[in-house]
């Protein structure tokens, strides 16, 4: 072989590195996340459908109730009633996207092995790390942001509808000024990103790990072991630390009483001390470990 072809060969080999791994990483990540959304359209269709149904219900109910009861209530009382529906919208949408996230995670790494499309994905220069991370980004970041955006839009429409109904029935808009909207939305944002993204992260991480590991029936593998641990603990030690730990993870947070009431924390957002709690950081570490395991499994395990 002469020197010239050697140079050609070398430059061809070197080119992927020369392109700059960092930019390539961002680009691959972007396309991989986009691919996930193409494949799992329920990511946005489910919350949109729920929002539409909620708005319809809201329209029917408020066109009746705002008229009938408004007369007997003070503006502050009116605002309280309205705020409850307002927060209910957020709650329903958060519940929807949480369920979507759970089902998404359990399917994410098993589906591609079941239909063998993993053989196609692996024929492209996208590493297992990028793939798993792009799948983790969906419940950790994309769904919370989407939840916020759709909730925000839904609530804006609710405000508009109420304003129209109030004006049409000859009432003042004073009630709407008692809603402290700015605070509500900042609170909502930190709640979905901090709570539904990061506090729930170990749940998603565990499900992705199970999804990468289970050959079939990933759902059973995700549910039965935690159940078994809880039951065993009860039988052996007559305690229920594991169950209460799981419970507090799902219910939202540690001991603060505001958390228990459900709606209040959404208004105030995640308290700062929450991010400083060891439980939060242990959860993130656990998530990282699960994702690392999922990457290893996808790498080592044959496609079938």
């Amino acid at each position, binding site marked *: 072989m002469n020197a010239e072809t050697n140079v050609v060969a070398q430059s061809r*080999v070197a080119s992927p*590195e020369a392109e700059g791994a960092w930019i390539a990483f961002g680009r691959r990540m972007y*396309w991989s996340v986009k691919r996930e959304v193409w494949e799992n359209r329920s990511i946005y269709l489910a919350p949109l459908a729920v929002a539409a149904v909620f708005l319809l219900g809201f329209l029917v109910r408020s066109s009746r109730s705002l008229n009938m009861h408004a007369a007997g209530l003070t503006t502050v009382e009116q605002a309280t009633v309205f705020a409850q529906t307002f927060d209910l919208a957020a709650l329903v949408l958060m519940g929807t996207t949480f369920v979507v996230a759970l089902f998404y995670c359990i399917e994410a790494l098993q589906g*591609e092995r079941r239909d063998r499309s*993993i053989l196609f994905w*692996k024929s*492209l*220069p996208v590493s297992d790390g990028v793939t798993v991370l792009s799948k983790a980004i969906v419940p950790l970041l994309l769904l919370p942001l989407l939840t916020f955006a759709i909730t925000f839009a839904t609530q804006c429409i609710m405000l508009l509808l109420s304003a129209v109904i109030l004006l049409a029935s000859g009432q003042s808009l004073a009630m709407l000024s008692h809603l402290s909207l700015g605070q509500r939305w900042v609170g909502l944002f930190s709640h979905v990103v901090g709570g539904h993204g990061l506090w729930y992260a170990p749940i998603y991480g565990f499900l992705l790990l199970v999804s990468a590991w289970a050959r079939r029936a990933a759902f059973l593998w995700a549910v039965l072991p935690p159940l078994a641990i809880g039951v065993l603990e009860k039988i052996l030690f007559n305690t229920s630390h594991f169950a209460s730990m799981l419970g507090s993870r799902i219910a939202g947070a540690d001991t603060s009483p505001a958390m228990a009431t459900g709606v209040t924390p959404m208004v105030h957002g995640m308290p700062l001390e929450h991010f400083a709690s060891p439980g939060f950081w242990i959860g993130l570490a656990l998530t990282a470990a699960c994702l690392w395991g999922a990457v290893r499994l996808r790498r080592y395990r*044959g496609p079938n």
Partner: protein
Amino acid sequence: MSCIEARGLRKSFGNTVALDGLDLRVQEGRILGIIGPNGAGKTTALNAILGLTPYQGELRVLGRDPWTERDLLMCDVSFIADVAVLPRWIRVWQLLDYVAGVHPRFDRSKAEAFLAKTSIHSTSKVRHLSKGMVTQLHLAVVMAMDARLLVLDEPTLGLDILYRKQFYDSLLNDYFDQRRTILVATHQVDEIQHVLTDVMFIHLGRVVLSCSMDQFESRYVEVSVRPEKVEAARVLKPVNERQALGRSVLLFDGIDRQKLGEFGDVRTPSIADVFVALLGDRPGHAQGAAS
């Protein structure tokens, strides 16, 4: 330059040995056919070359270690692992968008030009395409990647003859050039015989035969021996003997053609003939597990 170089490649799954010290050397610009019965280790060997499975032994693909440098290697290697591994939910335009997004040397217009010659629409979903069309689509994507090594594992299994012929014609006419190397593992031996430059038989994880097609054609001779000459012909130690149309057909390895002409009609055997002759009676064939 060697495109692939393997020495003593080993891999076992539990007690089953899939690769038992496989040696392999493929030069750049060749089209190698890997032929073997089910369970011979073809797919395992290809998976090792593609960095899909860990292995023991030495292996370099385009100068890289496929297991540790897999992500970089995949910029220069493309593969069709099987018919119908394209995700069923994806639309054609999404597939092209995605590959263009993640592959540094994907020429989208090339893929579109190829697809324009087919009846595949860019809005079609893979799930709605026929098996043959899915293979066309996959081929269009792979041919638009400027890869140096293309690996095909049973790329035409289950397709009708028209699609199969078209597949290899496109590959030869529109894709292959002296810089590229192609590796094909298949059972449909006869159809790819004219495509190959090299051939390799593997059985039970070992190489049984490895030579260029030129060598193959000069080495193997099949003679339909006249009944009175059978004994004389057998003295020359044929590698195989079978009966066809009442005559003994003897296969010789490395015996002069002119000399054999004295016994009867001489012809060059197909890959399939030699394959059956060399591997047909081997132990282990009957139990051949799925690869």
